[in-house]
């Protein structure tokens, strides 16, 4: 199980590295997405329990609720991740469309050349 957390932290670090050292807006957007995905993996693995079942109430599970409750994985992180994924889609779409416009105005995607506003 701890492998999940290691990979989540690895993804976050990779995303951060990409954000800091890559010189292309599209790569920066990819870095941002990778970083957020790392956080999502962290959230999801937090609610997981080994051998757990899906937290969906069906006809069978209502007959034995304590057993169901003791085996089901935590549904809350999944709901959080779903919300967060949607937000991340918005940000990615926003960033991509802004990058398109930036390319039209500046003729480049290099963030070190998009610097008319400084000091």
């Amino acid at each position, binding site marked *: 199980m701890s492998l999940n957390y290691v990979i989540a932290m690895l993804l*976050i670090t990779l995303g951060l590295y990409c*954000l800091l050292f890559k010189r292309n*807006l599209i790569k*920066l957007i990819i870095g*941002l997405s990778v*970083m*957020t995905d790392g*956080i999502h993996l*962290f*959230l999801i693995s*937090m609610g997981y329990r080994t051998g757990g079942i899906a937290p969906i109430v069906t006809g069978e599970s209502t007959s034995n609720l304590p057993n169901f409750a003791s085996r089901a994985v935590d549904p*809350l*992180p999944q709901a*959080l991740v779903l*919300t*967060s994924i949607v*937000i991340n889609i*918005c*940000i990615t779409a*926003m*960033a991509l469309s*802004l*990058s398109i*416009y*930036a390319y039209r*105005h*500046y003729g480049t995607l290099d*963030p070190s050349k*998009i*610097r*008319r*506003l400084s*000091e």
Partner: protein
Amino acid sequence: MIPQAPILAIVVPLFSAFLMPMIGLLSKRYNIDRACDWFAVAAMVGTLIVVASMAPTVWGGQIIVYKFGDWSPPWGINLAIDALSIQMALMIAGLGTLVMVYSVAYMQRDSRRDLFYTLALLVITGMMGTILTGDIFNFYVFLEIMSVASYALIAFRRDSSGIEAGLKYLFIGSLGTSFVLLSIAMLYSFVGSLNIADLGAKLAIYRGAAQPVPTILVASLALFVTGIMIKVAMVPFHIWLPDAFTAAPTAVSALLAGPAAVVGIYWVARLPYLPFGLPVGIILVSLGLLSMIVGVLMALTQRDFKRMLAYHVISQKGYMVLGIGLGTLGSVLGAQGGLFHLLNHSIYKSMLFMCAGAVLYRTGSQKFEELGGLGKNMPLTALTFLIGSLAISGIPPLNGFVSKYTIYLGGIEAGLPIVTIIAVLVSALTFASFFKAFSSVFLGQRPKHLRDIQEAPKLMLFPMLAMAVVCIVIGLFPALGFNVVGPAQAAAENSAGYIGHVIGGI
């Protein structure tokens, strides 16, 4: 209190934003000019009425707890409104209304105004949500609503500088919000709850150094502080702010400088007590001092009207964070001064941006070199700008003096007189910088091409003059402000009362 008032405060701007494209379509079909504009103003007035109706109940000592779908607090999502929230909500609704009235006149040359008002109302929704909610993940969602809408607003005109500023704010802001998300994830993994009151109750054992604080809590706190400080724009994280405020349409700058400053400061005021309750006073004081100094020194040499104002936003927010930091170090006056300064600053900085916008609207320029002598053409704009610049420099009969003076006293009360000295010096430099701005724009020789400039439209002048009157009134009767700020500060400190009201369901 209007029944259902807490949720209506969020729902009214949200659903007005949803309805706005439809109104845009209808007004285009039936050729009704400005339908969108007045609908947005009406939505904001409705929000203001709803928020104002909650105020007497809250100031009466009650904390309003609103449960979504009748799920009780530790499990369901709830809204919790105490005196600190109500101060912020009143400011957002009131200033938001004035900014909307201003943008009716300011944005009339732009096309697709329905989209502008959709985004602006979404920003208001996000701000309302972040300050009213009692659930920390809900806070994150509303923060993102506000952030994404403001990225789009900054790039609204799609000119090169707007796009660049929007991109910069997007990357820095998204890094900040993902820090907040990671912090919430860590908090959830450690405590197993997302309700702010529940978190505060469960983390209370680490208060007062009785037990060693676990590393994951330290990491979570640091991530949260960083995320909030990016929104507040304290100095190592401030870089998005001058670009964004320079490049955005001025109505957006006023919206972000006045109402949107509230969100960050609200969380700065909440943070030392709930949900973490760990001491962050030293960070707040040092970041505040750094921002004050760097902001004002950068502002002194700017050539651009709005950019100078933007650097002053950073400097003045430094005062607020400093005051709240002094509050956590044992000075009640400091915290009250910080919150009071937020109230005053939001009013006069929105007003100053509106003045800059009026000049930009009439002359088409925001560079100091290309302006001058406009005092004869735009006397009322010049008057409001003068009142605003005197207020921001802390000259006695105006409101800026009262709050700054309270923060100075807080510095002495907390046993840090050096802080007071630096604050006074920064105030003097602020005055110097505004002296330069006033003399370059409204005094001096008037270039030939500015001879026929007229006074700003009446719809722009109305919010500016209203804010100027509020500045003078609060300056003359500071008790009015302290009646709002005093309960707010007490409510921020009273974390036990908050937890009791929310969890106990009183």
